């Protein structure tokens, strides 16, 4: 088990460098001078631009810039943004907010997705099943930004429930509406996943056996059907955490949440490579650790899986 974890962590290294280098090169390849653009329609003296470019190492070749960045990371120095702020501070202020949003979204999608999926799967073909399938299809088909506008229009604007936007400290309760928007697509996916695997497991031998043993229906559902049906759902939730973090670009924009999404978008627009890469690096790590966690959870959920030494 430990060996397995170690191997997986080792695999993280090339992916980490690959992803950060890729992003770095891509941002570098975006045409235009990021420094000159910092000043809007009122350009400063050319020598000033040169000096600022030197301060950000932008006068050096791209690979050197990347190496300097990597060396900085190992010394715990994430560099400064074009705004002169330590990147680490920006990370520290943006990630907790987005993490709260992502966790809420994760809870919402797991709660609704699994419950609805379970009921649908158990009563396959029924009215409830049909209705929830149609809703889930709608949720997947309508882009997140449209759902966002519609919910914003419906709740805060028309019904006067909650705030149209999230205040600057982004407390949990204000994040519920954005989290629902963020979770919408995933709710549908989880519903469908759960439904399919519950339906499949219903016909499985171990369920028949359990029922034949005379176990109560509730226990059969809880212990046998649900536990086994959760395996693909957990995989999905794990990979979803990563996409929730960035999927938040759109949702955070609609609700004015000062999280990762906005910072990432801003960094791309400004061509602020170091800041963007720092964010991507953290996201990649979260994404990969979440995947690892999922694989380990497999072992807990599925007794047939044991990781080889």
């Amino acid at each position, binding site marked *: 088990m430990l060996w397995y974890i170690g191997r997986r962590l080792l695999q993280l290294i090339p992916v980490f460098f690959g992803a950060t280098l890729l992003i770095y090169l891509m941002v570098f390849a975006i045409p235009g001078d990021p420094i000159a653009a910092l000043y809007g329609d009122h350009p400063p003296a050319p020598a000033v631009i040169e000096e600022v470019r030197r301060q950000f190492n932008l006068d050096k070749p791209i690979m050197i810039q990347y190496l300097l960045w990597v060396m900085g990371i190992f010394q715990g120095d994430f560099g400064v943004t074009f705004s002169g702020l330590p990147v680490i501070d920006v990370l520290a202020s943006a990630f907790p907010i987005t993490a709260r949003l992502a966790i809420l979204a994760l809870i919402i999608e797991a709660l609704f997705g699994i419950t609805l999926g379970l009921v649908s799967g158990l009563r396959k073909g029924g009215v409830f099943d049909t209705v929830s399938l149609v809703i889930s299809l709608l949720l997947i*088909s309508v882009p997140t930004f449209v759902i966002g506008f519609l919910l914003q229009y419906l709740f805060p604007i028309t019904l006067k429930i909650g705030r149209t936007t999230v205040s600057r400290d982004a407390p949990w309760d204000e994040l519920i509406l954005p989290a629902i928007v963020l979770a919408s697509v995933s709710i549908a996916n989880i519903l469908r996943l759960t439904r399919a695997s519950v339906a499949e497991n219903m016909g499985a031998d171990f369920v028949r056996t359990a029922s034949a043993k005379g176990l109560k229906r509730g226990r059969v559902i809880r212990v046998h059907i649900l536990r086994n049906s959760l395996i693909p759902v957990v995989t999905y939730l794990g990979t979803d955490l990563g996409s929730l973090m960035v999927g938040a670009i*759109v949702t955070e924009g609609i609700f004015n949440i000062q999280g990762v999404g906005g910072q990432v978008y801003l960094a791309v627009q400004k061509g602020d490579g170091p800041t963007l890469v720092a964010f991507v690096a953290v996201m990649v790590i979260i994404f990969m650790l979440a995947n690892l966690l999922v694989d380990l959870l497999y072992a807990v959920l599925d007794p047939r899986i044991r990781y080889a030494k």
Partner: protein
Amino acid sequence: MQSNRRIERYVAPLDETPIAAVDAVDTSKKASSVWGDAWKDMRGRWLTWVCLVLILLIAAVAIFPELFAKADPTSCDTLNSVAPAIAGHPFGFDVQGCDVYARVIYGARASVIVGLLATILATLLGGVIGAIAGYYGGWLDSVVSRLGDIFFAIPTVLGAIVVMQMMPWDKNAMSLAIVLAIFGWPQVARIMRGAVLSTKHADFVTASIALGVSRSKILLKHVVPNALAPVIVIATVSLGTYIVAEATLSFLGVGLPPSMISWGHDISVAQDEIRTTPTLLIYPATALALTVMAFLLLGDIVRDALDPKARARR
């Protein structure tokens, strides 16, 4: 090493072993294939036909928009800005004074083209890479898997925003499709690799090897066709998601250029009018949702049809 596997033997009840039926194999009937069975199954569902009609309609609208809308979507008069519907202009006018109905009709093309191109590209790229990785294994597999991880780890929307910015200004459907495919292939590759791995050791493959068929020929003739089903399913489903992705990128302003009429772009422009003229947003959003839904449903149906277990359950 001695196998300690125990094969259970039991006598099945008579009704589960219709020996008589097995005996009566009708050799004159054509052997049934996975695809034939699938089609037979799909044919019987009314949803299939709803889907197909809808998709055909969308295709027709995308190819011949002028048959469905008389007004020119690019001829706009600012004086008509957000004017209500009048005869000949059933959906009214948008902010620029363009005919909304015409824009909804003409917008189909961008979505469908981007969706199709991205799906084809991602499926080809991911399919080939996944098949090679799965079949040959070894270091090739490791490299491809890590490469896939890298692209998998970078979220699509973020990656697409960056890559779209990298491109010189004249973006078109192809460039957008390429970008979506760049970040979409690992998913296909994973599925293809898994499917290839599971068929690699199938009896018919072992038999082919024993007969001396070359590795690449086996891959092409036996392994790939049998691994194709899951890839086709994922392709149909992802067609819908690529259309959503196109809309999202156009919404963010890094998608198609404004000269190409796109639902995502029109929705994004309409958001400012949501309080006063919500229909500007609702029409293109409905068209978008219908299109995506048609492809998603088709994907679902194909999946169910290709999966004998799901078929049996129904």
